[in-house]
Every structure is written in structure tokens, then in C-alpha cells.
């Protein structure tokens, strides 16, 4: 490879243009709103490319034309006909510019309108509360025992409109799942709402898109879109209290949880732990990732996260827990039993 080509971030470019769907990509929409945004993107991209090409062509032409005359400077003289022509050309260019901008404005507004309101009157409602640096997800229900609380993993049925009620506990965050819809700011003390809909089943990555402090970059979430029956099964599972520990090691793990710092911040429904500072762990073993999409939900990652979270996410609100090895082992066994 030529030395000059070495400095081009190939991997980034390949990733940006990759056809790997589902992950984190504006150009691979999986939802009607993201589709509209993608369409708008390509329209504006096309228009601006045309403008760019025309501009460069115009400059090149003008440069080539005057290049000969530059060595013989023209005497200053009146050129009435030339002035007249220039006035026409400039006027025409301005007119085309204004019309182009106006057209782009109109299609932007139309796209905004199109993605604004949900298409059905029977949506699934989700409350998303952003925290430093994770997402609290609740499925509100007038009946308290039918309310689901989870974290960082949003399950939705495919093809149904989802109304998201938003709020923030501390600073301004922004909810952004590029394959699904545009960004939405979550503002502390200010409840707001938007909607989205996912048409293709799959897991879609999302990310906080408003700088919110030290671990902003590690504040991810995922949207798991699944067929309605799977979604309802998931809901039924989430409504249950935590599984009772079945082995003596798991019982010990629960005791470790209830006698150490864990219970000061976390909830496990069905036990005495009921604090809402950190994520609800009642069904932690059922999630794919932990620590706001930072680590895979494996025994090793979980142990590392519990013992030294400040190494993994410096500044996170989770405190380090210097547990004795067999206490830690028992705790992991217990947490991994919480399906």
C-alpha cells in the first residue's frame, strides 16, 4: 500500500459503509421512521453532490478561461454588455439556490411531519428514564404489580407502535437508536414523549447522543424486537418475582447480596433489596449485556464488574466491592440464576 493511503482510516470507512444490518446504522433502517430519515438523507446528499459538482465545474471553467488573459492584464474599461450578462448569471444562480433551499426545507418539514405521529391508537407504552450512565426501562401499568422494571434492554413487539415516555434523573441525555428513529433528548424534570415502530425482528443497538459526563460513551442500550407472542412471554417472565435460590451456593450468594453494599442500590423483587439507585436486578440473567451494553453478560464479566467497576467504567456510580473469593463466586452463581 502506498504510504499516503496508510493514513486513511479504512476500517472505519468499511464499517461506516458496511451492509451489516441491525447494529448501529442510519443507512440500514429497520423501522418506518428511520426509513423516512434515510430517504431524506439521500435526497439532501444527492442535491448537495449535484451542487458541489456544478460549483467545481464552474470554477474550473472560469479558471481555465481567464488563465490565458492573466499574463496580459486587461485595461480597466467599461463593459456594459458584460455587466449586464453578469447580472443575469448571478441573479439566476441566486434564484436556483433559493429554490433548492426551499425545496429541501419543504421536504424536511414533510419528513418531520411523517415521523411525528403514531399510526395506531393501541400502542405499547414504555417509560425510559436516563441516569448517569444507564437507562431505566419501565412498562407502566395502572396496576402496580403489572409494572415491569428493567434496564438497558428494551423489548418491543414487531410492527406495533411504541410510545416512549422520557425523563432524566440527573442531566440531559439523548436516546438514539439509528436503525429505528432519530435522536430524542431526555431532559431532567421534563416529561416528554415520542414513538417508534420496528418492522423487522432483531436486536438494534442504541446510544446516548448527548454528552452527559465521564461515561457518556459507555451508555448504550438495545432494542430487542420480537414477534408478539415472544414479547408477551417475555413480559410474563419479567412480571414474576426473582427465582428462589435452589442450591446452597445460590442461597449463600443471596445472603452475600443482602449483607453487602449491593442492597444499598439495587432491587431484587422478592427479597429485602429494594433500592432504586441502580438497575433492577430481578431478572439480570435474562439480559444479553451488563453495565449499559458495555460487557457481555457472562460470569467472568459480571465478576470483574462487581469487583472493580471503576477500572471498566471510571467514574461510574457503582462502587468497587472487595469481596472474598468464595463470597464472590456464590454471588455470581446467585445472580446468574435470576432468569
Amino acid at each position, binding site marked *: 500500500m502506498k504510504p499516503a493511503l496508510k493514513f486513511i482510516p479504512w476500517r472505519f470507512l468499511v464499517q461506516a459503509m458496511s451492509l451489516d444490518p441491525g447494529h448501529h446504522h442510519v443507512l440500514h433502517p429497520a423501522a418506518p421512521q428511520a426509513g423516512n430519515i434515510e430517504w431524506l438523507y439521500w435526497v439532501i446528499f444527492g442535491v448537495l453532490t449535484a451542487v458541489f459538482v456544478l460549483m467545481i465545474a464552474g470554477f474550473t471553467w472560469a479558471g481555465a478561461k481567464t488563465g490565458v488573459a492573466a499574463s496580459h492584464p486587461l485595461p480597466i474599461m467599461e463593459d456594459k454588455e458584460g455587466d449586464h450578462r453578469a447580472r443575469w448569471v448571478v441573479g439566476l444562480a441566486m434564484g436556483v439556490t433559493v429554490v433548492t433551499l426551499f425545496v429541501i426545507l419543504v421536504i424536511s418539514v414533510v419528513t418531520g411531519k411523517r415521523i411525528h405521529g403514531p399510526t395506531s391508537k393501541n400502542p405499547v407504552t414504555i417509560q425510559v428514564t436516563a441516569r*448517569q450512565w444507564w437507562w431505566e426501562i419501565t412498562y407502566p401499568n395502572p396496576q402496580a404489580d403489572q409494572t415491569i422494571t428493567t434496564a438497558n434492554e428494551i423489548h418491543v413487539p414487531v410492527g406495533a407502535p411504541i410510545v416512549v415516555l422520557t425523563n432524566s434523573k*440527573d*442531566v440531559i441525555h439523548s436516546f438514539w437508536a439509528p436503525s429505528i428513529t432519530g435522536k430524542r433528548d431526555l431532559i*431532567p*424534570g421534563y416529561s416528554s414523549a415520542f414513538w417508534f415502530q420496528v418492522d423487522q425482528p432483531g436486536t438494534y443497538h442504541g446510544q446516548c447522543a448527548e454528552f452527559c*459526563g*465521564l461515561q457518556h460513551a459507555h451508555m448504550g442500550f438495545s432494542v430487542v424486537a420480537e414477534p408478539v407472542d415472544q414479547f408477551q412471554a417475555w413480559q410474563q417472565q419479567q412480571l414474576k418475582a426473582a427465582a428462589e435460590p435452589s442450591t446452597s451456593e445460590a442461597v449463600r450468594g443471596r445472603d452475600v447480596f443482602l*449483607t*453487602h*453494599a449491593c*442492597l*444499598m*442500590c439495587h432491587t431484587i423483587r422478592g427479597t429485602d433489596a429494594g*433500592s432504586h*439507585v441502580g438497575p433492577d436486578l430481578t431478572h439480570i440473567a435474562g439480559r444479553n449485556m451488563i453495565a449499559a451494553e458495555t460487557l457481555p453478560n457472562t460470569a467472568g464479566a459480571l465478576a470483574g464488574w462487581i469487583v*472493580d467497576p*471503576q*477500572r471498566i467504567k*471510571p*467514574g461510574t456510580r457503582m*462502587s*468497587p*466491592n*472487595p469481596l472474598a473469593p468464595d463470597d464472590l463466586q456464590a454471588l455470581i452463581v446467585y445472580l446468574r440464576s435470576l432468569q
Partner: protein
Amino acid sequence: MAKHFYFALLLVIAVLLVSCKREERILRQPPPANDILNTIQISGLNPGANSIPTPPNSNMYQESAYAVAEGQKLYEEYNCVGCHAHGGGGIGPALMDRDWIYGSEAGNIFSTIMQGRPNGMPSFRNRIPEYQAWEIAAYVRSLAGLLPKGVSPNRTDQMNIKPAESSTPEQTPSGITGIPGQHQ
């Protein structure tokens, strides 16, 4: 002229260094010392001649604005507010006044948090990490105005609808503060 310039530069650097310390964020805390509770001397009095120097109740957290602000958050999150309110007291004694039943030094407050005290103060030993207890202790001292203004909390990460703590005038708690026979 150059002399003046270097002097000004030195002054600017000195000011910047001071502000660095104030805003220093110790994110990975040093591991807890063994049995720190038994090494803290609660009182400056010793039997016999008072010749042994009192060990300094060093609390590095009360020199950091970040740590005090963290203490403020934890004070809410661990529900200190439930009994002590925002310093005015209620079920528990007020923390913004000058009365300290178990001492006003950072080490005293740390021990009170970790060991618990009769008549209702629970023990938080093993429930909260030691560094967080130090941060809370630093914040509690700031409630009573015992910390320098430079580090006492003057902003939280939340949106504020009231003036910053460090710029509010001194207040005294009013009403019953939970300790029978304490108030005149």
C-alpha cells in the same frame, strides 16, 4: 518587564494548581485499610499526661469539591435525608447546627456512620464502602459550615431551582430536631 511577566505567569500557574486539587477526581479508590475504625481516635483526650499528639483525622475527601458533591448525592441516595432531612433534622438530629453529640471531626462522623449510634442511627458497616462514608462525612461537615467555601457543594449535576449551597446565608434549624431535652 520580563520579570513582571514571569511573576504573573507564576501566579497564574499557582492559581491553576490550586484549582486542580479542588477538582481532582479520585475515581479508582485506594483499597480500604484494615480495621480503619479501630485506628480512628474519636477524642483528643488521653489518660495521663496529654503528651501523645492526636492523630490527625485526615480526610482527603473534604478537600475535593468532587468528593463533597459525591457525598451530597450519596446522602440522598442512601436515604440519610429520611431522618436528618437536608440538615435540619427530623427523626434524627439536625446536622446544620453547632451541636455534635458524637463529635464534629470527619473521623467522628465516619465512625458514627459505620458503627451506628444508640436511639436509632443504623450501622452502615459492610453496607457502604469506606470511601463513600468519608465522602458523606465531608458533606455532613459542609452542612454545618465546617468546610472551606471552596469545596462546599456549589452545584449538583441536577438542574437547580435554588441558589448554590456555598452562596446561601447561614441558617439555623427550627422546630423539634429529634433529640429530647436538647432544644431550649
